[in-house]
C-alpha cells in the first residue's frame, strides 16, 4: 500500500499538468454531447436587461403620450400669451413627437464590440438580444466599439437574426435593412463618435457599413440624435466601450444602458448596477444562457452551460484535493 501510494504520488507530481489538461478537455467534450437545455433561474442583473427590451414599446408609447400632453399644455399657454421662446418650444416638441411616431415600438441600439476571442460568451447574448428586439417589433441600430475586427462578426450576427425567427415564442419574419434595422459598422475613435451622436447620429455615421447613405433610410427619419434612442446595450470584451457608454449615454444623456461582458471583467461592473447607472448586467455565459431561455432564442449558450457545470465541479474537486494535500503536508512538516 505504501509503495503504491509513493508511486502514485511521484507519478502525480510529474504528470499532474497533463492529467488535468486531458481531464478538462474530456469533461468539456463529453458534456457538450448533451443537447438538452438547462433550466436556469434568472438573476436580477439579467432580469434588468430583459426588462429594458421587454418594456421598450410600452415606455415608448408613454413618451409619445407625455409629449402630446406637453404639446397641448404649451399650445394652451400660447393661446393665452404667445412669445418667440414658446413658439420655438412648440416647434421642437412637434418635431420630436413626429420622430417618436415614426419608430412607434421604440429604437434599440446594440453595440457589438467583441472579436473571435470572446464570441463564445458574447455572441449568443448579442444574438438573443437582437432577436428579442425584433420579435417585439423594435427597430434596431447596430454599431461597433473599440475592437477593429468586430465588424465582420457583427455582420454575421445581424444577418442571421434578420433572416427571421420562426422558432421564437413570438415569431417574426424577414427584417429589411434600412427599415427595420441599420448596421453602422466600425468607426475609429468610438468615444468621439458616441459624443457626436449626442448632436446628430447622421453626422456621426454618414453611411451604413456598406456605404449606403443613412439619410435615405426610413428608420433614420425618426432618429435625429441619441435622445431618440430608447435603450442601449453594449456587448463588449474590453473595458473601454462600456465605460465610454456609461460616460456618454448614461451620465450625459441619461439613456437606459445594459452591458454584457465576458465574465472576466463583469464583477467590476456591479457597482454601476447598484448605483443605477446600468439597468442590467449580463454576466458572461450564464447570463447569455438565462437570456436565451427567457426569450426563447436558439439555446446556444444554454447547451454550453453543461460543460461549464462539469468543469466547475472539476475545479472545485481540484481545490478540495489541493487543500487536503496542503493540510497533510503541513501536518507532516509539523
Amino acid at each position, binding site marked *: 500500500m505504501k509503495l503504491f501510494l509513493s508511486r502514485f504520488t511521484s507519478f502525480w507530481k510529474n504528470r499532474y499538468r497533463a492529467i*488535468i489538461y486531458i481531464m478538462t478537455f474530456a469533461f468539456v467534450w463529453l458534456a457538450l454531447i448533451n443537447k438538452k437545455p438547462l433550466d436556469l433561474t434568472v438573476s436580477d442583473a439579467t432580469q434588468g436587461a430583459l426588462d429594458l427590451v421587454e418594456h421598450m414599446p410600452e415606455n415608448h408609447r408613454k413618451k409619445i403620450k407625455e409629449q402630446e400632453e406637453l404639446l397641448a399644455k404649451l399650445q394652451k399657454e400660447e393661446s393665452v400669451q404667445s412669445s418667440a421662446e414658446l413658439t420655438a418650444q412648440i416647434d421642437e416638441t412637434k418635431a420630436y413627437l413626429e420622430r417618436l411616431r415614426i419608430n412607434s415600438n421604440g429604437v434599440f441600439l446594440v453595440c457589438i464590440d467583441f472579436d473571435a476571442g470572446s464570441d463564445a460568451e458574447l455572441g449568443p447574448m448579442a444574438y438573443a438580444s437582437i432577436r428579442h428586439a425584433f420579435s417585439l417589433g423594435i427597430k434596431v441600430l447596430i454599431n461597433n466599439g473599440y475592437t477593429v475586427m468586430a465588424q465582420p462578426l457583427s455582420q454575421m450576427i445581424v444577418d442571421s437574426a434578420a433572416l427571421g425567427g420562426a422558432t421564437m415564442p413570438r415569431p417574426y419574419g424577414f427584417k429589411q435593412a434600412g427599415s427595420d434595422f441599420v448596421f453602422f459598422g466600425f468607426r475609429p475613435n468610438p468615444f468621439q463618435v458616441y459624443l457626436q451622436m449626442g448632436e446628430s447620429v447622421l453626422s456621426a455615421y454618414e453611411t451604413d457599413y456598406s456605404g449606403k447613405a443613412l439619410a435615405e433610410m426610413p428608420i433614420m427619419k425618426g432618429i435625429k440624435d441619441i435622445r431618440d434612442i430608447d435603450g442601449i446595450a453594449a456587448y463588449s470584451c474590453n473595458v473601454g466601450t462600456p465605460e465610454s457608454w456609461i460616460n456618454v449615454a448614461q451620465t450625459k444623456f441619461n439613456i437606459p444602458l445594459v452591458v454584457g461582458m465576458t465574465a472576466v471583467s463583469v464583477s467590476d461592473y456591479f457597482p454601476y448596477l447598484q448605483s443605477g447607472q446600468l439597468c442590467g448586467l449580463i454576466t458572461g455565459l450564464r447570463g447569455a444562457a438565462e437570456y436565451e431561455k427567457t426569450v426563447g432564442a436558439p439555446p446556444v449558450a444554454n447547451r454550453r452551460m453543461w460543460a461549464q457545470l462539469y468543469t466547475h465541479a472539476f475545479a472545485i474537486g481540484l481545490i478540495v484535493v489541493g487543500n487536503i494535500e496542503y493540510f497533510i503536508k503541513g501536518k507532516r512538516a509539523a
Partner: protein
Amino acid sequence: MRNYLPPIICGVCGVIMMLHFFLPENTMLYKTMMEWVTNSTIVVGVFGLFIGLASLVHNHGNRIARRSPGWGYSVITLSFTAIVALTGIISQNVGPSVVSKPLEKYNYDNRKNQDHTLITHTLFGYKDETYKTNLVAAASSDAPEMKGEEITVRKVPLFMFFYNYVIMPMGATTFSLLAFYMITATYRAMRAKSWEASLLLISSIIILIGQVPIEEIPLIGKWIMGHAQLIVYMSLILYILYAAMKQFFSRNFITCGILSASAALIGVIWYYTPADVDFEAMKSIILNYPNNAAKRGILIGVQLGSLATSIKILSGIEKPYMGGRG
C-alpha cells in the same frame, strides 16, 4: 523648444478639450473642433501602425538575415503579413473567378427550421447573385422569405476566407489556452494558507457553485444544492474552530477566545438565515454587497489616482511623452 513646447501643447490641448464640454453643441465652433480632433487623432493613430509594422519587419528581418534559430518561422510570419495585407488592400475581389457550385441533391429539408444563414463561398472573387441573406434583400424591395429552396453560389474574397478560417479560430483558441492554465492554477494556488487566502477560497467556491445549476450533477448534485447552508456554515465553523485550537495549543488564549466567539456568532447567523438561501442566493449576496464594496473602493481609488495623474500631466509635472534623445 524641444523641452518646453511639448508640455505647453499637452496642457493647452487638454484644457481646451475639458472646456469644450461647456460649449453649446450646435455651434460651428463646436462641430469644427470635434471634427478636427476626431480626424487628427485617427490620422496620428494610423502612423502608430507604421511604427508597429516597422518594428515587426525589423525584428523578423534581423532574425532572417542572421539566420538565427527559428528564422524559418519569421519568413512565414512576414510572408503571411504581406499576402493578407496585399489581398486586402489591392482589391476586395482578387484572384481568378473560380466558382465552386453547391452540392447537387443536397438535402436542404434538414435546414428549413434552423436559424442560421446559409452562405456558400469560394476562394477567389466576389459576385452578387441571388441569395437569401439580408445583404441582398436590403438592395431589392421584394425580398423573398427563406423557404428552404436551393441557394445559389455566393463568392467571398480571399481576405474573408483568411478572416473566417484563420483569424477567428486561432484568436479564440489562443485565448482558450488560458482555461487549462486557470484550472491548473486552481489546483496549485488555491490553498488556505492564511485567513486572507481562506476568504478568497470561500468566496470563489460559493460563486463557482452558484453560477452553475449544481443540482443537475447526477447522484450528489441535489444533495449539495439542498444542503448549501450546512456545507458553507459548517465548513466555516470547523475551519475557525481548527484555527482556534491551533491558537490554544500555542497558548494564545485571547486569540483562541476571539476565534471561538466568531464561530459561535456564525452559528447564530446560521440559525437566523432563512431556509431558502441556497448557493445562488449566497452568490447574489456576495456579489451585491462585499464584492460591490471592494470593487467600488477600487474604482473610486483608481479614478482619484487617474484624476491626480491627469492634472499632473496637464500641468507638466509628469511628462510621459518626453521620450527620445535630443
